[in-house]
Protein backbone atom coordinates (compact mmCIF):
# COMPACT_ATOMS: atom_id res chain seq x y z
CA UNK A 1 0.00 0.00 0.00
CA UNK A 2 2.82 2.37 0.88
CA UNK A 3 4.96 2.32 -2.23
CA UNK A 4 4.72 5.82 -3.65
CA UNK A 5 5.74 9.17 -2.29
CA UNK A 6 2.19 10.66 -2.01
CA UNK A 7 1.07 7.65 0.06
CA UNK A 8 3.93 8.19 2.46
CA UNK A 9 3.03 11.86 2.83
CA UNK A 10 -0.63 11.02 3.44
CA UNK A 11 0.36 8.46 6.07
CA UNK A 12 2.38 11.09 7.92
CA UNK A 13 -0.57 13.49 7.64
CA UNK A 14 -2.81 10.78 9.15
CA UNK A 15 -0.50 10.29 12.13
CA UNK A 16 -0.21 14.04 12.73
CA UNK A 17 -4.00 14.29 12.48
CA UNK A 18 -4.34 11.63 15.17
CA UNK A 19 -2.00 13.59 17.45
CA UNK A 20 -4.04 16.74 16.85
CA UNK A 21 -7.25 14.83 17.65
CA UNK A 22 -5.83 13.59 20.94
CA UNK A 23 -4.74 17.12 21.89
CA UNK A 24 -8.26 18.40 21.13
CA UNK A 25 -9.76 15.58 23.23
CA UNK A 26 -7.53 16.53 26.16
CA UNK A 27 -8.67 20.14 25.88
CA UNK A 28 -12.29 18.98 25.65
CA UNK A 29 -11.94 16.96 28.84
CA UNK A 30 -9.94 19.45 30.90
CA UNK A 31 -11.25 22.70 29.35
CA UNK A 32 -11.90 25.04 32.28
CA UNK A 33 -14.51 27.20 30.53
CA UNK A 34 -17.43 26.21 28.34
CA UNK A 35 -16.00 28.14 25.39
CA UNK A 36 -12.93 25.88 25.40
CA UNK A 37 -15.27 22.91 25.06
CA UNK A 38 -17.32 24.46 22.24
CA UNK A 39 -14.14 25.37 20.39
CA UNK A 40 -12.66 21.90 20.81
CA UNK A 41 -15.86 20.20 19.64
CA UNK A 42 -15.94 22.39 16.55
CA UNK A 43 -12.27 21.72 15.91
CA UNK A 44 -12.81 17.98 16.31
CA UNK A 45 -15.46 18.19 13.61
CA UNK A 46 -12.93 19.85 11.32
CA UNK A 47 -10.47 17.05 12.10
CA UNK A 48 -13.17 14.55 11.12
CA UNK A 49 -13.50 16.21 7.72
CA UNK A 50 -9.72 16.19 7.24
CA UNK A 51 -9.47 12.56 8.37
CA UNK A 52 -12.06 11.37 5.85
CA UNK A 53 -10.23 13.27 3.10
CA UNK A 54 -6.81 11.87 4.02
CA UNK A 55 -8.20 8.34 4.40
CA UNK A 56 -9.81 8.59 0.96
CA UNK A 57 -6.54 9.62 -0.70
CA UNK A 58 -4.61 6.99 1.28
CA UNK A 59 -6.83 4.18 0.03
CA UNK A 60 -6.92 5.61 -3.53
CA UNK A 61 -10.60 6.52 -3.37
CA UNK A 62 -10.89 10.33 -3.33
CA UNK A 63 -14.69 10.04 -3.95
CA UNK A 64 -15.07 10.38 -0.17
CA UNK A 65 -14.31 14.09 -0.49
CA UNK A 66 -17.93 15.19 -1.07
CA UNK A 67 -19.00 13.17 1.99
CA UNK A 68 -16.38 15.05 4.00
CA UNK A 69 -17.99 18.31 2.82
CA UNK A 70 -21.34 17.13 4.25
CA UNK A 71 -19.65 16.56 7.60
CA UNK A 72 -18.45 20.16 7.50
CA UNK A 73 -22.09 21.26 7.08
CA UNK A 74 -23.28 19.15 10.05
CA UNK A 75 -20.47 20.57 12.15
CA UNK A 76 -21.51 24.11 11.23
CA UNK A 77 -25.17 23.54 12.15
CA UNK A 78 -24.25 21.91 15.47
CA UNK A 79 -21.94 24.80 16.40
CA UNK A 80 -24.63 27.35 15.54
CA UNK A 81 -27.12 25.48 17.75
CA UNK A 82 -24.66 25.37 20.67
CA UNK A 83 -23.88 29.07 20.36
CA UNK A 84 -27.58 29.90 20.17
CA UNK A 85 -28.03 27.95 23.37
CA UNK A 86 -25.32 30.11 24.96
CA UNK A 87 -26.89 33.34 23.81
CA UNK A 88 -30.51 32.64 24.77
CA UNK A 89 -30.22 29.72 27.25
CA UNK A 90 -32.83 27.96 25.12
CA UNK A 91 -33.17 26.29 21.73
CA UNK A 92 -36.91 26.73 21.14
CA UNK A 93 -38.97 29.91 21.30
CA UNK A 94 -40.79 29.22 24.59
CA UNK A 95 -38.13 30.30 27.03
CA UNK A 96 -37.16 33.36 25.01
CA UNK A 97 -40.73 34.68 25.15
CA UNK A 98 -40.69 34.10 28.88
CA UNK A 99 -37.51 36.09 29.38
CA UNK A 100 -38.84 38.97 27.32
CA UNK A 101 -41.87 39.20 29.62
CA UNK A 102 -39.59 39.55 32.62
Amino acid sequence: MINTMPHFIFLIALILLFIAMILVLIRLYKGPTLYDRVLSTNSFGTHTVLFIGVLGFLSDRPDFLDIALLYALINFVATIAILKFFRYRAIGDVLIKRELKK
Partner: protein
Amino acid sequence: MIDTFTNTVLFVMLVLTALAIVRMERLFAVVMLSSVFSLLSALLFVTLDAVDVAFTEAAVGAGISTVLMLGTIALTKPEAKRPRHTAFVPLIVVCVTGAALVYGTLDMPAFGSPDAPAQTHVGPDYLSRTPIDIDVPNAVTAILGSYRGFDTLGETAVVFTAGIGVLLLLSGLRRRREDEDEEI
Protein backbone atom coordinates in the same frame (compact mmCIF):
# COMPACT_ATOMS: atom_id res chain seq x y z
CA MET B 1 -1.61 -2.78 8.34
CA ILE B 2 -2.69 0.84 8.06
CA ASP B 3 -6.30 -0.24 8.63
CA THR B 4 -5.35 -1.99 11.86
CA PHE B 5 -3.43 1.08 13.03
CA THR B 6 -6.29 3.45 12.20
CA ASN B 7 -8.90 1.23 13.83
CA THR B 8 -6.80 0.81 16.98
CA VAL B 9 -6.20 4.55 17.43
CA LEU B 10 -9.86 5.37 16.76
CA PHE B 11 -11.06 2.70 19.21
CA VAL B 12 -8.67 3.92 21.92
CA MET B 13 -10.00 7.47 21.48
CA LEU B 14 -13.58 6.14 21.52
CA VAL B 15 -13.04 4.28 24.81
CA LEU B 16 -11.30 7.30 26.38
CA THR B 17 -14.21 9.54 25.36
CA ALA B 18 -16.71 7.06 26.82
CA LEU B 19 -14.81 6.98 30.13
CA ALA B 20 -14.70 10.78 30.17
CA ILE B 21 -18.49 10.87 29.61
CA VAL B 22 -19.02 8.54 32.58
CA ARG B 23 -16.75 10.54 34.88
CA MET B 24 -17.94 14.03 33.90
CA GLU B 25 -20.29 15.90 36.26
CA ARG B 26 -21.21 18.94 34.15
CA LEU B 27 -23.90 17.91 31.69
CA PHE B 28 -22.91 20.54 29.12
CA ALA B 29 -19.46 18.94 28.80
CA VAL B 30 -21.16 15.54 28.57
CA VAL B 31 -23.18 16.76 25.58
CA MET B 32 -20.02 18.02 23.87
CA LEU B 33 -18.22 14.74 24.61
CA SER B 34 -21.10 12.64 23.28
CA SER B 35 -21.07 14.66 20.07
CA VAL B 36 -17.35 13.87 19.71
CA PHE B 37 -18.10 10.21 20.56
CA SER B 38 -20.57 10.08 17.71
CA LEU B 39 -18.07 11.68 15.30
CA LEU B 40 -15.46 9.08 16.33
CA SER B 41 -17.84 6.17 15.74
CA ALA B 42 -18.75 7.72 12.37
CA LEU B 43 -15.02 7.70 11.52
CA LEU B 44 -14.86 4.01 12.49
CA PHE B 45 -17.78 3.30 10.14
CA VAL B 46 -15.92 5.17 7.38
CA THR B 47 -12.83 2.99 7.87
CA LEU B 48 -15.13 -0.06 7.64
CA ASP B 49 -16.41 1.29 4.24
CA ALA B 50 -19.95 1.86 5.57
CA VAL B 51 -20.08 5.48 4.47
CA ASP B 52 -23.88 5.76 4.52
CA VAL B 53 -24.14 4.39 8.08
CA ALA B 54 -21.35 6.77 9.12
CA PHE B 55 -23.20 9.73 7.68
CA THR B 56 -26.42 8.80 9.48
CA GLU B 57 -24.48 8.41 12.72
CA ALA B 58 -22.86 11.83 12.31
CA ALA B 59 -26.09 13.59 11.33
CA VAL B 60 -28.16 12.06 14.13
CA GLY B 61 -25.53 11.74 16.85
CA ALA B 62 -23.44 14.86 16.37
CA GLY B 63 -26.14 17.05 14.83
CA ILE B 64 -29.72 16.38 15.96
CA SER B 65 -29.18 14.73 19.34
CA THR B 66 -26.70 17.44 20.43
CA VAL B 67 -29.37 20.05 19.74
CA LEU B 68 -32.06 17.97 21.50
CA MET B 69 -29.89 17.38 24.57
CA LEU B 70 -29.03 21.07 24.81
CA GLY B 71 -32.75 21.82 24.67
CA THR B 72 -33.29 19.33 27.49
CA ILE B 73 -30.58 21.00 29.58
CA ALA B 74 -32.28 24.35 28.98
CA LEU B 75 -35.51 22.88 30.39
CA THR B 76 -33.87 21.05 33.33
CA LYS B 77 -30.72 21.46 35.44
CA PRO B 78 -27.16 21.64 34.07
CA GLU B 79 -25.63 19.47 36.83
CA ALA B 80 -25.74 15.69 37.20
CA LYS B 81 -27.43 14.20 40.26
CA ARG B 82 -25.24 11.91 42.34
CA PRO B 83 -26.61 8.34 42.21
CA ARG B 84 -27.70 6.99 45.60
CA HIS B 85 -27.02 3.31 44.96
CA THR B 86 -23.73 1.68 43.98
CA ALA B 87 -22.87 0.88 40.38
CA PHE B 88 -22.01 -2.74 41.16
CA VAL B 89 -25.12 -4.55 39.85
CA PRO B 90 -25.36 -2.45 36.64
CA LEU B 91 -21.66 -3.13 36.02
CA ILE B 92 -22.24 -6.89 36.27
CA VAL B 93 -25.26 -6.68 33.93
CA VAL B 94 -23.24 -4.68 31.39
CA CYS B 95 -20.29 -7.12 31.56
CA VAL B 96 -22.54 -10.18 31.10
CA THR B 97 -24.37 -8.55 28.17
CA GLY B 98 -21.07 -7.54 26.56
CA ALA B 99 -19.65 -11.04 27.00
CA ALA B 100 -22.80 -12.54 25.41
CA LEU B 101 -22.51 -10.15 22.45
CA VAL B 102 -18.82 -10.97 21.94
CA TYR B 103 -19.65 -14.69 22.21
CA GLY B 104 -22.30 -14.16 19.54
CA THR B 105 -19.75 -12.68 17.11
CA LEU B 106 -17.47 -15.74 17.39
CA ASP B 107 -19.63 -17.77 14.97
CA MET B 108 -19.83 -14.97 12.43
CA PRO B 109 -17.60 -14.98 9.32
CA ALA B 110 -14.65 -12.57 9.43
CA PHE B 111 -15.07 -8.99 8.12
CA GLY B 112 -14.94 -8.99 4.31
CA SER B 113 -14.52 -12.78 4.17
CA PRO B 114 -15.41 -14.14 0.68
CA ASP B 115 -16.94 -17.29 2.27
CA ALA B 116 -19.64 -15.32 4.11
CA PRO B 117 -23.21 -16.31 3.10
CA ALA B 118 -23.88 -12.71 2.07
CA GLN B 119 -21.01 -12.85 -0.43
CA THR B 120 -21.66 -16.35 -1.80
CA HIS B 121 -25.29 -16.23 -2.92
CA VAL B 122 -27.32 -13.26 -1.54
CA GLY B 123 -25.21 -10.39 -2.90
CA PRO B 124 -24.54 -11.78 -6.40
CA ASP B 125 -28.22 -12.74 -6.71
CA TYR B 126 -29.40 -9.21 -5.94
CA LEU B 127 -26.74 -7.73 -8.24
CA SER B 128 -27.76 -9.93 -11.15
CA ARG B 129 -31.54 -9.53 -10.63
CA THR B 130 -31.71 -5.78 -9.96
CA PRO B 131 -31.20 -4.55 -13.58
CA ILE B 132 -33.84 -7.01 -14.92
CA ASP B 133 -36.44 -6.75 -12.13
CA ILE B 134 -36.37 -3.06 -11.23
CA ASP B 135 -34.06 -1.27 -13.69
CA VAL B 136 -32.48 1.05 -11.11
CA PRO B 137 -28.71 1.67 -11.36
CA ASN B 138 -28.22 1.68 -7.55
CA ALA B 139 -28.58 -1.82 -6.10
CA VAL B 140 -28.88 -0.54 -2.51
CA THR B 141 -31.82 1.69 -3.45
CA ALA B 142 -33.46 -1.22 -5.25
CA ILE B 143 -33.13 -3.48 -2.20
CA LEU B 144 -34.39 -0.86 0.26
CA GLY B 145 -37.22 0.44 -1.89
CA SER B 146 -38.45 -2.72 -3.58
CA TYR B 147 -37.13 -6.05 -2.30
CA ARG B 148 -37.46 -4.92 1.31
CA GLY B 149 -40.27 -2.46 0.65
CA PHE B 150 -42.48 -3.65 3.53
CA ASP B 151 -39.54 -3.44 5.94
CA THR B 152 -38.89 0.16 4.89
CA LEU B 153 -42.62 0.94 5.19
CA GLY B 154 -42.56 -0.41 8.77
CA GLU B 155 -39.51 1.69 9.63
CA THR B 156 -41.17 4.80 8.23
CA ALA B 157 -44.30 4.07 10.28
CA VAL B 158 -42.20 3.73 13.46
CA VAL B 159 -40.37 7.00 12.84
CA PHE B 160 -43.64 8.76 11.99
CA THR B 161 -45.25 7.50 15.21
CA ALA B 162 -42.26 8.65 17.26
CA GLY B 163 -42.42 12.09 15.64
CA ILE B 164 -46.16 12.44 16.41
CA GLY B 165 -45.50 11.37 20.02
CA VAL B 166 -42.76 13.98 20.46
CA LEU B 167 -44.98 16.69 18.91
CA LEU B 168 -47.85 15.80 21.28
CA LEU B 169 -45.53 15.88 24.32
CA LEU B 170 -44.02 19.22 23.29
CA SER B 171 -47.38 20.87 22.59
CA GLY B 172 -48.63 19.81 26.04
CA LEU B 173 -45.48 21.27 27.60
CA ARG B 174 -45.93 24.59 25.79
CA ARG B 175 -49.56 24.93 26.90
CA ARG B 176 -48.57 24.30 30.53
CA ARG B 177 -45.82 26.89 30.35
CA GLU B 178 -48.20 29.49 28.93
CA ASP B 179 -50.62 28.76 31.79
CA GLU B 180 -47.79 29.29 34.28
CA ASP B 181 -46.90 32.59 32.63
CA GLU B 182 -50.48 33.81 32.92
CA GLU B 183 -50.52 32.98 36.63
CA ILE B 184 -47.39 35.04 37.16
